[in-house]
């Protein structure tokens, strides 16, 4: 019981510090606060289950990786999306009320992996090396993908 209490205390502290920032990251990736909360719940449930084995110095990386995997999984077609009826596609993003409001709508037009890379770099302020490790790609690949993504966003913003 004592061990569980200590474990829960440490977990609660980490949750208090990181739940909101991670939810913002999830929201920036998926554009939906509701789904973002589900992704963060999944992340922390997994983290709790492995809390004893996760080292302090790697806990942030573990949480980010879990969140990223959950997000990328959510973008794949689920069984609910295997269509059986002719339903019109989702309408485009609502009219934005300024460049800041445009950002998420524009971001949503990028492929999920590229979007996630950009969010981790710019919202979480992660160094290129850490993003590369998270995605299992080279640093050069992260640089080129984020750079191309931002260029596309800038172009679309100008056109809007």
């Amino acid at each position: 019981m004592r061990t569980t209490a200590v474990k829960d205390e440490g977990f609660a502290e980490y949750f208090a510090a990181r739940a909101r920032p991670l939810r913002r990251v999830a929201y920036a990736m998926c554009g939906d606060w509701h789904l973002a909360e589900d992704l963060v719940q999944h992340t922390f449930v997994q983290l709790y289950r492995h809390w004893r084995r996760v080292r302090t110095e790697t806990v942030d990386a573990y949480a980010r990786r879990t969140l990223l995997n959950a997000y990328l999984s959510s973008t794949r077609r689920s069984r609910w999306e295997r269509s059986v009826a002719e339903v019109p596609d989702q309408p485009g993003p609502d009219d934005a009320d300024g460049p800041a409001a445009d950002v998420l709508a524009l971001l949503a037009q990028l492929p999920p992996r590229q979007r996630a890379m950009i969010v981790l770099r710019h919202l979480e302020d992660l160094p290129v090396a850490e993003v590369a490790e998270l995605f299992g790609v080279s640093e050069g690949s992260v640089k080129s993908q984020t750079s191309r993504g931002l260029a596309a966003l800038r172009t679309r913003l100008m056109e809007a």
Partner: protein
Amino acid sequence: MTGKGEEWFTEALRDRVGQDEPPLILTAAGVAAVGRRQRMMRAWGASAMAVGVGVSLMVVGLQVIPGEENSAAAGCAPPVPATSVPLPEGSAWPFVDELPQVGPTAGPPDRVGPRPDLKAFECAVRENVLGELPDARFGRIYTGDGTTPAPLQGMAADHALGDRQDTRYGVMAAAVAATRAGHGAILVSAQPVDGDPYPGRCGPGKVCDARTGPHGEPVELFVRQSPANPGAIGYTVYVYTGRTAVVATVTNTPDADVRLPVTAPTPLLTVDQLITLACDPRLALWP
């Protein structure tokens, strides 16, 4: 950390994300409880499999071993993808206008208490609906306050229903759905009331039918048909449990007001399925 010339984006992104951030519903204790439950279920699944081998195929067939795939909303059905089903202009949410009052609200906030757990409400709705409609696609439904919550997302019902239903302090979840049979809408809400305020108003010869729920709850069933929209049908049930009134509606048109074109012969759920959903004890948020 980010490169020169990219600050505009960093700043815009941070501004945007901070604009409409809702309060966090999750708690560390809640997440830990789900984690413990998952661990126990996993352990139970492993033991059951060990026991089941060589003993009974049926035992093995019955066990549940949750995996990573379905744990995204642990203890809850997975989030419903927002495949939007746009409604025609002017069709936004004018529903239940011909339905009678659910009942007076239980009173001011000091009597009602804090708003209950939206997540638990949402999970119960999702689980029931997705269980009955496993092959459906779901879309957002436009609410009276102009928001478009995710399909079956739990939300405060303070303004979403406009003035047509007194749902102060209430919660709701709704979606448009497309099934093999056609389109339909579903809406579930819960609100505090002073018990069953209208005992006996339904029955033979009256506008609604009186039923009894699986746990003995009084249930009022309204079946609506629209002379202006031939074939349109709406089932609405009011269920009173403790100080909670649950109102659940299903239709065979992609709006809860049965005004849009009919594409399915019957509503999304049968009356019995709707009653089962509305009588889920987890929806009785005010005991």
